């Protein structure tokens, strides 16, 4: 099956869970900015967790499927349509042969994900299909989608076929699943997000005033935020004294403070190492909330302990496993 890109959207790339194991060569992890959305999208269409999806940005693509397909939109909801009929996000949707999915533009959030049963079939590069545009590898020729591109789809799993069969009671009509993953499992996005921070190695080096500001103030997402990092404007932070740091490894969610005083949260395409003071680390459970912020949106921070952050992460993983198990149960009995 082929997927024709009728319009590319602003920045649409192939992403999966990212490329682990290559960071010592300076190769960034990449992968979905909003991991939860990617995982939920994949499980709604019966994919493995690491199947590749399309990640859109601010303006979604329009895609035409030359054969019947099973899809789901997760993450940002831009009011997607199939053949001009609105479809809900966070639901498996059967798309008839020749159907056109318009992901839409402008709405809550920044990044909608398009999961397709079978996954987006591009070559795996060092264990991942994720696109890294800066060095032009992974995904589709190492670049964002362009209008006129044609994407291949991988082989759908038995579960994907069972879901598709159940939703295609009339093969020429759109079919929307009545079941989904419950809202408690989905990230609670907001354009005025509250994000929890773990202490960074140099948190204690902030002036008392800056440390208070970090947790009291409302930061504005700057226009120069991207898949590499989010720059947070409007509130300047200062260290007690300039610090000379040795470069070392950084993580998804590391909040660096360069000398200018504008904090940067490192995201999916972050460099593998950094030399700026690290004042905080975003709890993994809240990374999707940052990933869905648009330039101009606001974010406030609250402290969290490492034990609580890991407890919440494990609880979210358990929720996803339960959702996966309940879908498996539903389709192992041939019900819909």
């Amino acid at each position: 099956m082929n997927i024709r890109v009728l319009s590319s959207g602003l920045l649409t790339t192939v992403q999966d869970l990212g490329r682990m194991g290559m960071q010592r060569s300076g190769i960034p992890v990449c992968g979905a900015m909003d991991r939860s959305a990617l995982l939920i999208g994949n499980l709604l269409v019966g994919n493995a967790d690491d199947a590749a999806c399309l990640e859109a940005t601010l303006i979604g693509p329009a895609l035409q499927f030359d054969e019947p397909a099973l899809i789901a939109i997760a993450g940002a909801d831009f009011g997607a349509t199939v053949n001009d009929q609105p479809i809900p996000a966070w639901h498996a949707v059967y798309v008839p042969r020749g159907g056109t999915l318009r992901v839409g533009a402008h709405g809550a959030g920044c990044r909608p994900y398009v999961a397709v049963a079978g996954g987006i079939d591009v070559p795996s590069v060092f264990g991942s299909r994720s696109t890294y545009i800066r060095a032009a590898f992974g995904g589709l020729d190492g670049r964002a989608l362009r209008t006129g591109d044609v994407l291949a789809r991988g082989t759908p799993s038995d579960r994907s076929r069972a879901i598709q069969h159940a939703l295609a009671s009339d093969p020429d009509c759109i079919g929307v699943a009545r079941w989904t993953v419950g809202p408690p499992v989905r990230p609670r996005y907001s354009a005025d997000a509250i994000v929890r921070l773990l202490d960074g190695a140099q948190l204690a080096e902030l002036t008392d005033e800056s440390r208070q500001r970090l947790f009291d103030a409302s930061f504005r997402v700057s226009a120069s935020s991207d898949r590499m990092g989010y720059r947070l404007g409007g509130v300047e932070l200062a260290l007690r004294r300039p610090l000379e740091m040795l470069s070392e490894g950084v993580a998804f969610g590391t909040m660096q403070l360069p000398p200018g005083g504008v904090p940067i949260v490192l995201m999916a395409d972050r460099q593998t190492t950094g030399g700026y003071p690290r004042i905080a680390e975003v709890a993994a459970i809240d990374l999707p909330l940052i990933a869905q912020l648009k330039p101009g949106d606001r974010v406030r921070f609250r402290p969290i302990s490492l034990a609580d952050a890991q407890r919440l992460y494990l609880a979210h993983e358990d929720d996803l496993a339960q959702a996966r198990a309940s879908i498996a149960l539903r389709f192992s009995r041939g019900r819909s």
Partner: protein
Amino acid sequence: MLRYAPLGDHAIVITVGDAIDEATHRLVRAVSARLDETHIPGLVDQVPAFASVVAHYDPAAVAGDAHRVPYDRMVEALETAFAGLEHQRPQPARLVEIPVCYGGELGPDLTEVAERTGLAPNEVVAIHTAGDYLVYMVGFMPGFAYLGGLDARIATPRRQSPRTAVPAGTVGIGGQQTGVYPLVSPGGWNLIGRTPLRVFDMSRDEPALLAAGDRVRFRAITLEEFRSWPA
């Protein structure tokens, strides 16, 4: 000897020292080698640097009593893995020779480096090629090696205004450091030459030409050799 600290909820910084020196580097290499040789459930990646190694892990996949905090269990697993680390055999260092065409349009700042250091351009080249360099770490961008061992006589401050696009393979000097740009990128170093080698190439089994622990020598080649270098 080793210090552990959380880096968010998915990584641990293992610190072995506080300075850029060869003794610290050997400890980093030992920690890194031990992580490669030991199966540690949950460990997904590692990043050796000047004085630390970051271990990236999945808290949901760490072994041990599920009621205990994954970080504590991971630190325990690391401590166990590092038992007897002082007996860790050092991995043999590779020697990588990098041919460089110095000066001219491939090294437009060679004359300026010569002027600033009070040397003749060929003396700068002689000193740069005489050096024995060590790859302390790879990071910052794909395949970028931080080299130690630059002769202080040719150390030259970074340029006032960085160039917007330095070609891949360009060899530069920035302050006390020298190195090779693996990809076309903006850069503020003084550009003294270019290598015909592909410093970073995703189509190879090992995309990065240089890895932490490598010894590096530069060798001067002519423009003709540069142009006829096999791709």
